[in-house]
């Protein structure tokens, strides 16, 4: 099948061809899910939030004007969905204890024990970062967005993004180091 751009797909959705939203779902549900999982640390909530993002794409498709990237618009919806969720559940925020187990449901059971414990450590370290820092790491390191793209998604300059990545990695490095003893690699 010929590759149709995100923008063209969304324009078709806007014109009433709702099936095209399925194509966008196939393209982006995994990315949104990973992002939400890192933010909420809860698989079920993350699935619901992904659903909510696509629901809002349908309900508010009139606000899609196609200026700029589709992904920018999508992540903007994702952010507002997440914020609505936080506001509603401010009192019920997931604690770190619950968080420890949660990302595991996505991990590979075949992984060697050593690698698994390394991943667990990283999960716990990531968990201690602020939402802002974790978000930028997930987008840049786990989802491989370019800094320019992330700048578009989060609505700030490339310089700001790089600086945020710097502090995020620096904090993460410190946390890992303190959890792990001293790392020596270069």
């Amino acid at each position, binding site marked *: 099948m010929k590759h149709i751009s995100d923008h063209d797909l969304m324009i078709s959705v806007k014109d*009433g061809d*709702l*099936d095209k*939203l*399925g194509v966008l*779902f196939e393209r982006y*549900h*995994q990315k949104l*899910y*990973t992002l939400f*999982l890192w933010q909420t640390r809860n*698989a079920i909530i993350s*699935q619901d939030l*992904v*659903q909510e993002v*696509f*629901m*809002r794409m*349908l*309900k*508010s498709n*009139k*606000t899609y004007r196609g200026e700029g990237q589709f992904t920018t618009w999508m992540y*903007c919806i994702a952010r*507002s*969905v997440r*914020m*609505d969720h936080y*506001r509603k559940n401010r009192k019920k925020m997931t604690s770190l204890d619950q968080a420890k187990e949660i*990302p595991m*449901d*996505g*991990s*590979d059971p075949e*992984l060697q024990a050593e690698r698994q414990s*390394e*991943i667990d450590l*990283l999960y716990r*370290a*990531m968990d201690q970062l602020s939402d802002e820092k974790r978000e930028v*790491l997930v987008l840049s*390191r*786990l989802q491989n967005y370019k800094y320019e793209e992330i700048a578009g998604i989060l*609505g700030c300059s490339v*310089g700001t993004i*790089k*600086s945020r990545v*710097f*502090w995020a*990695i*620096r904090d*993460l*490095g*410190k946390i*890992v*180091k303190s959890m792990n003893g001293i*790392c*020596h*690699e*270069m």
Partner: protein
Amino acid sequence: MKCEFPESYFVDCLSGQLKGKDLRLFKKHLSECGRCREIYMEMKPAWQKIASMPEPRPAPSMKTDFYRMLEKEKACTGSRMSLRDRLNAWLQTWWPGEPVVQLACFIGAVLLAGFFVSFVQTRSSMHHEMSHVQQDMQILKRNVSMSLLQNQAASDRLKGIALIGQIADPGTSLVEELIDHINHDPNTNVRLAAVDAVALYSDLPEIRTKLTDALNRQDSPSVQIAIIDILIQMNETRSLRSLKAFIENRETDPIVREHTNRRLAEMM
């Protein structure tokens, strides 16, 4: 030793984007400056490891839920087609393609017109009946939508709001009801749908103040954005003034502020 390398050098070096002279100078600095070297060494293992983390897989139910939602939405959209679209679709199904049959239909229509003239006498009373039926339908729709809006299930309230969109003259009570849902409905989708529905009556004088008031009560950024879009469309001095006050408020969400600023700038 003066450290004049900004944070971006560390990030670019880690991601392999630092090239040529910049890279050489930075590496040289790292070999000479203990402080920067320590920072870099601390960052590097975290940088490498994080990219090797496995991607979490959502449960298969996520897909099935999504496609179920999509099917439901498709069914709803079908029933929300405008009268013109429905009429077109209906005409397409029965209007014959062959010219001969079309001619027959035309002659039939001319004959019918003849009969119609003879019915002119009785027509006015028929018309009277029809408008009664139409009025009854409107009242029925109004009552049904009212009772749907009181329902516990958000999906029913959404249906109620969709039904209001089909009522020619909803009257103040239904518009009030919509505003009430914008302000108090616990479900964001219902609130969004209510905002969309109210947009149809944006020419009513009281809507502007009610929406401005609703904007300040909202805690959901997406509903705020939906309201802001309508207020901007109204393009009325007082709404624009209250929007400016809204974005100057410290508590306003940055995304909403940015959206509003952008929309306002588009207007200029």
